[in-house]
């Protein structure tokens, strides 16, 4: 029962974010995509509400959280005014590709098997994402003494996942390690649904499912923050590439920066890509504005409690960049990016982009992929011997550019008529 209630906390996120269905581009999506976008909005809203309460000194009680988040959900229902069906013109132009959908189902089931038999567990769930969620819940606020005692890893990591775990514990009254692992399958399905619903390309969605099923297994992503980050990356880039919705992209970017420090790198890459590809600084800043606001809030909180580590490295004395290590860094990153299958996830995406018919459409996600890989190289070059650091982190760090490349490969084959 505890496990089911904990998982229900995540399943309830689309209700909390139902207001996202007001966005015209979302209303035109198939149901799976609409639920996924609402889930993303719900995750961001829940995180912002819990963080804001904590910053304001208002402790989290069941009654308060149910009242506030319940009111937001009811407001969403009223705002969409019962318009749960798609407006005219939102119909699929192609019939479902049942073979591709069957493949997605098989890959999702395999991932579920891997998760439920403890074959994909993220060590970081056990070492800090889970502990943070548990301690925050027990403290009824963001537990500053726990973060500030400097005995635990990554105290300054963004708060989305621990705060969603707090929300789930509010329902379940205790932490469920197994349900925390299973949330990964929700983010997996959400990522695939968003790509499928926005591109109307079942085959492309199947490719994303295959790549994520494999890479989540070999990077041990279950229960950690990499699956949610991929979800928000997929949302942002699908919104910018296929449905041209700046609102939806803004939700994705805000989610990304609240999930991992790599989300901030992704934010910078998206802003630069919009400026370079769409030649619009104004649009880039509008899309980035909510993300910049929530990021500023989190960094201000960290500065107040004195634990700005990852975000503050630029200020450190040892800012030397070891340019002589570029070849070694690239070789080590290529090894990490091979994902124990000769780099097939990257190779197939690149091949499909090269063979694609509408490569211009792939330009924005492709630019983001290149920039995020460049950012990873830049960070690794700050270490005099980055070998261990790359081996330990690059397979997960490269999931962001890999997702961007898969989206680019789908865009490259998009029929001109859609």
């Amino acid at each position, binding site marked *: 029962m505890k496990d089911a209630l904990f998982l229900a906390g995540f399943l309830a996120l689309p209700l909390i974010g139902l207001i996202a269905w007001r966005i015209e581009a979302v209303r035109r999506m198939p149901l799976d995509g609409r639920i996924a976008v609402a889930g993303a909005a719900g995750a961001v809203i829940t995180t912002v509400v819990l963080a804001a309460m904590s910053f304001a000194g208002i402790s989290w009680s069941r009654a308060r959280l149910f009242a506030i988040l319940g009111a937001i959900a009811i407001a969403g229902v009223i705002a969409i005014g019962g318009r749960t069906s798609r407006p005219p013109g939102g119909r699929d132009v192609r019939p479902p590709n049942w073979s591709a959908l069957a493949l997605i189902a098989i890959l999702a089931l*395999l991932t579920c098997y*891997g998760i439920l038999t403890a074959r994909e567990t993220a060590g970081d769930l056990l070492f800090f994402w889970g502990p943070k969620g548990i301690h925050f819940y027990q403290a009824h606020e963001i537990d500053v003494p726990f973060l500030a005692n400097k005995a635990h890893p990554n105290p300054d990591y963004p708060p989305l996942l621990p705060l969603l775990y707090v929300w789930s514990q509010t329902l379940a009254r205790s932490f469920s390690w197994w349900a925390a692992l299973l949330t990964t399958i929700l983010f997996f399905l959400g990522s695939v649904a968003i790509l499928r619903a926005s591109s109307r390309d079942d085959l492309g969605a199947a490719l994303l499912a295959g790549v994520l099923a494999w890479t989540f297994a070999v990077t041990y992503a279950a229960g950690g923050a990499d699956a949610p980050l991929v979800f928000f990356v997929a949302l942002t880039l699908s919104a910018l590439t296929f449905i041209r919705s700046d609102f939806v992209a803004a939700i994705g970017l805000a989610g990304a920066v609240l999930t991992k420090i790599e989300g901030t790198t992704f934010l910078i890459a998206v802003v630069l890509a919009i400026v370079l590809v769409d030649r619009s600084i104004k649009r880039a800043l509008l899309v980035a504005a909510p993300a910049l606001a929530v990021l500023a809030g989190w960094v201000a909180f960290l500065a107040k409690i004195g634990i700005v580590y990852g975000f503050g490295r630029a200020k450190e004395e040892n800012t030397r960049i070891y340019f002589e290590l570029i070849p070694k860094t690239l070789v080590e990153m290529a090894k990490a990016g091979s994902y124990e299958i000769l780099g097939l996830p990257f190779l197939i995406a690149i091949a499909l982009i090269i063979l694609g018919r509408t490569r211009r459409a792939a330009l924005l996600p492709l630019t983001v992929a290149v920039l995020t890989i460049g950012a990873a190289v830049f960070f690794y070059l700050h270490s005099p011997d980055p070998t261990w650091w790359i081996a330990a982190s690059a397979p997960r760090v490269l999931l962001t550019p890999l997702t961007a490349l898969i989206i680019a490969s789908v865009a490259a084959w998009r029929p001109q008529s859609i």
Partner: protein
Amino acid sequence: MTRLATHAFKVEGPLVREKLIYAACILFALMLVRRFQGLGGPYFTFPETIQDHVRETPYPSRDAILLAEHAATVIPRGKKVTVLRPSEAPNYDLTLFYAATGLMPRHLVVAPDLDSPNPPDYVISVHEPLNHPAYRMHVELEKGFIYSRK
């Protein structure tokens, strides 16, 4: 010739793409089955901990989970606790105590340092007995020991 090849690809392109994606997805699925099989059995039994099959030979933190879960029920709340493998001194594997922070939230779980001015009240020793003059055995368990300060 080139024009003919380009024309042929325009016609056959989507089919090539379809074949490529199906082949890749089937390969990913088969490789997943092979990987899961390689991580060892049992294959259809619900595991004891969330780390049971992440490696063929389980990490020590897998047993630290079981020990910390038990310790949470026998060590009084609020006591200072650490988790270690004595043979690793002084460079203890910190992941053992990291794991306990989430499993013993009502205790003060600290990094292993038995000779600090403010040492832990209890030590969970994974796999091995602890020989330290300031601690005596409290409980012996299948996967390790719990020691309390004398």
